[in-house]
């Protein structure tokens, strides 16, 4: 029973009350003199804290802490409260009720003021004050209240230098992240993620069976398990990741138990509602019918003005079908999380299980995740520590499907189709079946039928685990071996029944696919920490790592089923077997790394790192690359001469770094002369042929980024105000570029290292504790500017056009290239200005375009100009947190200024062809009676022209998150047997101020698109949501 009698008060909770009861009951030792002995230890490292002070709370009686952190003193009576403190640590109180049978252990955790906070760097940790590089950290607190399916969804607005755009608002949808701008034209631009030491890219592995936007692989990791996120930005920080460091590194550390802390059981539950923030203003049935009549009359004037419907019928039409209302709904999101964490002196554990379920704001879409995590580590022997981080999860998503067109099975995005489906069409026909398709010339499927009847699902199992052993060879010298693996299995299902348009040609079409990426990692590192005298401190790291990624995929399908019952579960019953496919890919990375940090007298910090990477992805002669970096920082405020300024400035540190990093994200086998299979037909049967698909390039190597960073960290007013400023210059050379070569070679391009791009920028972060006391008010502001410029591309060209974009030397990536509108052709102007319409037979009401080339006429090919850019002037985030007693109110405002968006939805809605629905602006279109100067006439077959009309200001400021929480008073909680209880209410995207007319300005189509950024083409809109939750600790 003795072990019950000295329950430590760190987690003051129910069993403590229980032990107090026992103490009173037994009470024997409560009289006379008692000797209390114990040790004061660091809660993170478990090391003795020399110089700590220990005293009896509320008295002057204290004890001296010895070199091993131990103390002893005699108290008159129990219980007592012992208080341990140390500068830089949080003061800890321990209630002692009974004379301890063994020495007490008091763990102190560091007081994480800005400069003392521990930052996770590559292959280790450092205190912020020791850093020479630029690293931003995000606390759990700012992530907790956002019910996001994945962690990258929660990064918006939280740090300087990180731009986050939504690729899809689909639950579990992907986001696109750029750290300090995009530097690659054709390679990857997404950062490297390192979860508990395991590096990976957030790449989608798909068997190609499911249509619509892809599910975010990172959504397999439960964001609630995350303790901290550190974002490595400059070369001094990222060069240790060598050939994968150029796009920045996001280090995710999951929650661990705490040494010497008794078990804490926490249950979190939250429930929320999500809604579409804004609908697009479209024509109703009545107005659409008039538009269609106009378009038909324009094309066939001899057939009269009412070719579609007579006026009497039009008058009866009313609003017709509001397709947006048919698709969008208020949707539920819920999250349950149970965590057990704690530790003894020698072992720590954190075990959690969670369920996250999010319905999409589009019907029949959702994302569900079940996850389980166990993080344990133990000091098994004095010198040996072992640990395991293991997470397994199962996630499932129903994805908004592609919508069939006359030429392609899933040619249109769901949202695009939804917007252009005519309001005169109905979801169901007179017989109660689905209306199959747009009844007019532009054939595409009924989007609601596609949405509700296509079974379009993905399911993913992920196991991510790493185990390590750390052995102290000698004082300060530690060897660590880590082995880990991610095992992922993604299965995709698609069934298109025969009674909807997409399945009507094939009596049902079923496909299943599996994609299984698997990666293993081994890291072996040696660290040595030593000091010479009192002022020289060294830290050495040397390591050898290897990682291999294998992925396989397989898909099969069949069509022409007897009925729709079996869906994809019995392919053999389909009368027609679709061509199966399989694929496999292996890549490997072999690396050496080293780092040396040295600091002198808490004033001068130096760090150099070097990594050698060998990658299978590159040409025979360029397998290995070397990536060095160096950083230096100077804590000016610790200089003697600074003492006079100390009153005003508490801390001032200047940092400077330079280094080289790489990017190898081009996929495998790109340097080889691989062959592609094709079919041909002889004797009316298929035969296979193989053709060379690319020129080999044995010199293919990394993209190399050189980055310089100059920054400072300063603290004012007893560090109540802190300021971090970084300026950087990044120059990426040897871009992995498909250099255009003459077609006479048989190829269009050859992947070469060619060209360069620069990014220059400035990042400012201010944190201020405006009011301290009973009412506490924090403000955090971050602001980032990035200027991107293409310096060189390909051999003989200084520009090339990629769809609606121009990649041009001197211009940034994401430059929009299109025609320039110049009003509307008015009656009587046909002969003079008709050549500027681009139409063979110009008519009044046609849109006029500027003759950019000045050759006297307009064509879309010749007369294009730069008409916008996806690059913002600056992005920012502002957080305000107010605390009063148990209440905490916080607001995150976030925004972007100066960027433009290609509103491709609008381009399609302003065709005014009467074949599909149109934007409400159609009401102001040119007609002979009401000649408009800005909006063209109805026309049955207009050529779609990308022009500045569809480029909109994408600037916005939004209340990204607002939350109010209340932590119940401890006394009240204790009285009902709980440790801690908190209730909260939060909302996302509650307010948005923007001139952008689309669904949402925080958008980008496609994945990984640096060149083609900032287009809004049928993107699933992100939701506005309100969330309520409770968090209880036992």
């Amino acid at each position, binding site marked *: 029973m003795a072990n019950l009698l000295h329950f430590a008060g760190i987690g003051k909770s129910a069993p403590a009350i229980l032990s107090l009861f026992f103490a009173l009951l037994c009470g024997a030792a409560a009289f006379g003199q008692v000797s209390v002995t114990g040790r004061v230890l660091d809660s993170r490292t478990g090391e003795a804290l020399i110089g700590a002070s220990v005293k009896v709370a509320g008295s002057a009686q204290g004890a001296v802490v010895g070199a091993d952190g131990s103390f002893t003193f005699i108290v008159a009576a129990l219980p007592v409260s012992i208080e341990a403190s140390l500068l830089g640590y949080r003061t800890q109180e321990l209630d002692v009720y009974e004379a301890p049978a063994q020495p007490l252990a008091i763990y102190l955790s560091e007081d994480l003021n800005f400069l003392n906070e521990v930052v996770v760097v590559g292959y280790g940790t450092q205190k912020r004050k020791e850093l020479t590089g630029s690293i931003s950290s995000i606390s759990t607190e700012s992530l907790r209240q956002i019910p996001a399916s994945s962690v990258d969804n929660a990064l918006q607005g939280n740090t300087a230098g990180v731009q986050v755009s939504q690729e899809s608002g689909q639950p579990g949808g992907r986001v696109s992240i750029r750290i300090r701008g995009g530097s690659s034209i054709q390679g990857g631009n997404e950062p490297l993620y390192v979860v508990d030491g395991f590096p990976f890219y957030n790449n989608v592995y798909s068997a190609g069976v499911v249509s619509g936007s892809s599910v975010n692989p990172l959504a397999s990791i439960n964001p609630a398990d995350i303790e901290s996120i550190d974002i490595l930005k400059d070369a001094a920080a990222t060069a240790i990741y060598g050939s994968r460091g150029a796009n920045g590194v996001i280090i995710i550390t999951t929650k661990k138990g705490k040494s010497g802390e008794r078990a804490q059981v926490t249950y979190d539950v939250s429930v929320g509602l999500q809604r579409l923030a804004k609908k697009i203003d479209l024509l109703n049935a009545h107005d659409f019918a008039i538009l269609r009549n106009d378009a038909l009359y324009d094309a066939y004037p001899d057939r009269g003005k009412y070719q579609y419907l007579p006026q009497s019928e039009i008058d009866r039409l009313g609003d017709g079908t509001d397709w947006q209302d048919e698709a969008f709904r208020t949707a539920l999101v819920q999250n349950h999380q149970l965590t057990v964490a704690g530790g003894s002196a020698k072992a720590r554990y954190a075990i959690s299980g969670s369920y996250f379920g999010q319905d999409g704001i589009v019907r029949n879409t959702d994302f569900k995740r079940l996850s389980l995590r166990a993080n344990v580590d133990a000091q098994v022997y004095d010198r040996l520590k072992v640990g395991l981080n293991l997470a397994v999860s199962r996630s499932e998503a129903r994805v908004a499907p592609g919508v069939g067109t006359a030429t392609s099975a899933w040619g249109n995005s769901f949202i695009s189709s939804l917007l252009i489906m005519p309001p005169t069409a109905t979801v169901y026909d007179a017989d109660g079946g689905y209306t199959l398709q747009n009844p007019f010339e532009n054939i595409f499927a009924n989007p609601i039928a596609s949405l509700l009847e296509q079974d379009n699902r993905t399911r993913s199992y992920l196991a991510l685990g790493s185990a390590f052993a750390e052995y102290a060879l000698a004082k300060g010298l530690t060897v660590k071996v880590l082995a880990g693996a991610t095992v992922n299995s993604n299965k995709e299902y698609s069934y298109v029944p025969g009674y909807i348009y997409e399945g009507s040609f094939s009596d049902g079409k079923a496909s299943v696919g599996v994609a299984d990426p698997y990666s293993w990692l*081994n890291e072996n590192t040696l660290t040595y920490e030593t000091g010479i005298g009192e002022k020289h401190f060294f830290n050495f790291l040397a390591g050898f790592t290897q990682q291999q990624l294998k992925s396989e995929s397989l898909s099969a399908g069949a069509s022409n089923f007897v009925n729709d019952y079996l869906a994809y579960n019995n392919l053999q019953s389909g009368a027609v077997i679709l061509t199966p496919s399989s694929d496999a890919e292996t890549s490997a990375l*072999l690396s050496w790394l080293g780092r040396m940090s040295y600091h002198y007298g808490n004033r001068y910090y130096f760090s150099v790192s070097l990594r050698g990477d060998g990658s299978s992805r590159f040409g025979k002669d360029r397998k290995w690359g070397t990536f060095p970096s160096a950083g230096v920082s100077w804590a000016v405020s610790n200089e003697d001469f600074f003492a006079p300024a100390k009153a005003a400035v508490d801390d001032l540190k200047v940092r400077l770094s330079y280094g080289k990093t790489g990017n190898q994200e081009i996929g495998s086998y790109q340097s080889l002369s691989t062959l592609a299979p094709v079919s*041909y037909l002889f004797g009316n049967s298929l035969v*296979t042929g193989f053709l*060379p698909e690319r020129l*080999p390039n044995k010199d293919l190597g990394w993209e190399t980024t050189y980055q310089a960073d100059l920054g400072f960290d300063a603290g004012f007013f007893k560090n109540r105000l802190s300021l971090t400023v970084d300026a950087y210059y990044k120059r990426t050379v040897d871009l992995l570029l498909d250099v255009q*070569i*003459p077609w006479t070679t*048989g190829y269009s391009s050859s992947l070469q290292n060619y060209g360069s791009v620069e990014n220059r920028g400035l990042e400012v972060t201010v944190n201020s504790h405006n009011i301290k006391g009973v009412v506490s008010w924090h403000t955090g502001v971050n602001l980032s500017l990035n200027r991107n410029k293409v310096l060189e591309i390909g051999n003989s060209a200084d520009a090339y056009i990629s769809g609606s974009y121009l990649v041009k030397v001197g211009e940034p990536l994401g430059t929009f290239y299109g025609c320039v509108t110049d009003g509307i052709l008015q009656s009587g102007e046909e002969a003079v200005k008709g050549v500027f319409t681009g139409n063979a037979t110009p008519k009044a009401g046609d849109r006029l375009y500027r003759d950019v080339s000045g050759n006297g006429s307009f064509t879309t090919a010749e007369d294009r100009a730069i008409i916008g850019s996806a690059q913002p002037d600056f992005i920012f985030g502002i957080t305000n947190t107010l605390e009063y007693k148990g209440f905490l109110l916080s607001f995150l405002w976030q925004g972007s200024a100066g960027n433009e968006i290609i509103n491709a939805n609008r381009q399609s809605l302003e065709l005014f062809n009467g074949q599909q629905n149109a934007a409400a602006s159609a009401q102001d279109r040119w007609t002979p009676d009401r000649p408009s100067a800005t909006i063209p006439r109805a026309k049955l077959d207009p050529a779609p022209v990308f022009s500045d009309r569809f480029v909109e200001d994408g600037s916005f400021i939004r209340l990204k998150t607002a939350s109010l929480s209340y932590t119940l008073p401890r006394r009240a909680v204790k009285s009902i047997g709980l440790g801690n209880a908190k209730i909260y209410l939060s909302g996302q995207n509650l307010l948005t101020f923007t001139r952008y007319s689309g669904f949402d300005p925080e958008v980008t189509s496609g994945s990984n698109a640096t060149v083609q950024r900032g287009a809004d083409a049928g993107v699933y809109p992100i939701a506005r949501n309100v969330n309520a939750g409770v968090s209880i600790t036992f």
Partner: protein
Amino acid sequence: MKKSTLYSIILGAAISLSSCVDLEEAPESKQSADNFYQNGEDAISAVNAIYRGLNEGTGQSLYNSLMQIGTEMATDDYEAGPRARNPHVRAISGLTHDASNDRMQELWRQSYGIVNRANVAIDRIALIGPDNISDALRRRTTGEAKFLRALAYFNLARWFGGVPLALHETPEALYVANATEAEVYAQIIADLSDAESLLPAPAEYGEQDAGRATAGAAKSLLAKVYLTQKDWENARKKSREVIDLQWYGLFEDFADVFNVATKNGKEHIFSVQFKGYANFVGNCMAGRSAPTSDEVPGVNGDYADALHAEGGLYSSFGDRDRRKAVTFVTEMVSPADGQRYTFIPHIHKYYDPAAVGDQYNSSSKNLPVIRYAELLLIYAEALNEEHNGPTQEAYDAIDTVRTRAGIPKLEQNLSADQFRDSVFQERRKELVFEYQRWFDLSRRGAGYYVATLHAAGKTAAAPRHVKFPIPQRELDLNPSLKQNPEWRK
């Protein structure tokens, strides 16, 4: 467990892992040129891939509509239809195209794709050891590659004139200068001469190889090359040689030329193969010219390739001409409402009623590159030119074609000019929608081409239009390449 044991396990694991990965790529899902081209089967598939260049992908590929919209639009027979939205196509139709015309660029790009595949096959098949490929197969596959390379260069020379001659696998030379037109033709003739001796007769192929290039195809194409070069004697000899071999003949019914059931029949010397709904590609020419849903509800053809009415092609067909009903359609029953609709003539040669649901893009009808009827017309034309007037054999040749069409024989005693006109008119009617018209007009010379188009109302036609401009992209990328003189600014 003893500590020391544990430590040695950890250490052992670290050391044993130290050489687990190999940085040399050995693609498990990709063939690589370094380990392919080893035997007869490899040789066959290398050659199969060249054929695929004729109709690659589902988009506009050479013999699946690109030659129609990128070439034939610039004639008196066609114009860009109401649904031809691509301004480049409209430019060709209106003769306002320039060196940045994207369809002409595609003609160039896809043709050189065939050339490169053929170069790879020719070079690599030659290196296969004699133990791994039979002599007969080496000869056949090399012959097929040379035939296809010749076909690609023949098209390129007719479109662009003196184009670069790439004859070996890249990257031997990335930047090749123009050859002269004569050099290109010399190479075409050399390749076809090789091919006619290397390739087997049609009957020597098994049924499973129907559609491959044969000695007959090489000889026939060679006859056409000579004809284009106005080498009348050789054109006459070569076409006569094919006639005398008696490998080919005309179908009795003209409709059988375009029947799925009679594919690769006795009249077909060389055709591009199509098959809808077979994980392959259907002939989309049917859809391109079919009526729109405004004309026939529920049909929804593209109507991107329209007849150029002023050219007078349709009206030149007599009602007795059996080709008329096969070639054109003017009425249809609507699948939407069951009513019969009549409309202006649309071309209907490739319409495949068996292609259920998508008759217009999944047609299984082949596209003839050269067929016996054309060979007879080549023979007739060559004889007329060689003798400066038609011989009886020339009459017999053209009349065989006319008789099959159900129209009277040509009247006797025509002058050389009259007979020439008759042959060209017969070619026009017999071979409509088979990518022949522009080649015929341009080989008769700039004056004839311009006069014909002007007469048909296409008044922008100029002498330079008998050649296409070399694509601007190629000029930009390849400093050794020069624009055709007529197109220099």
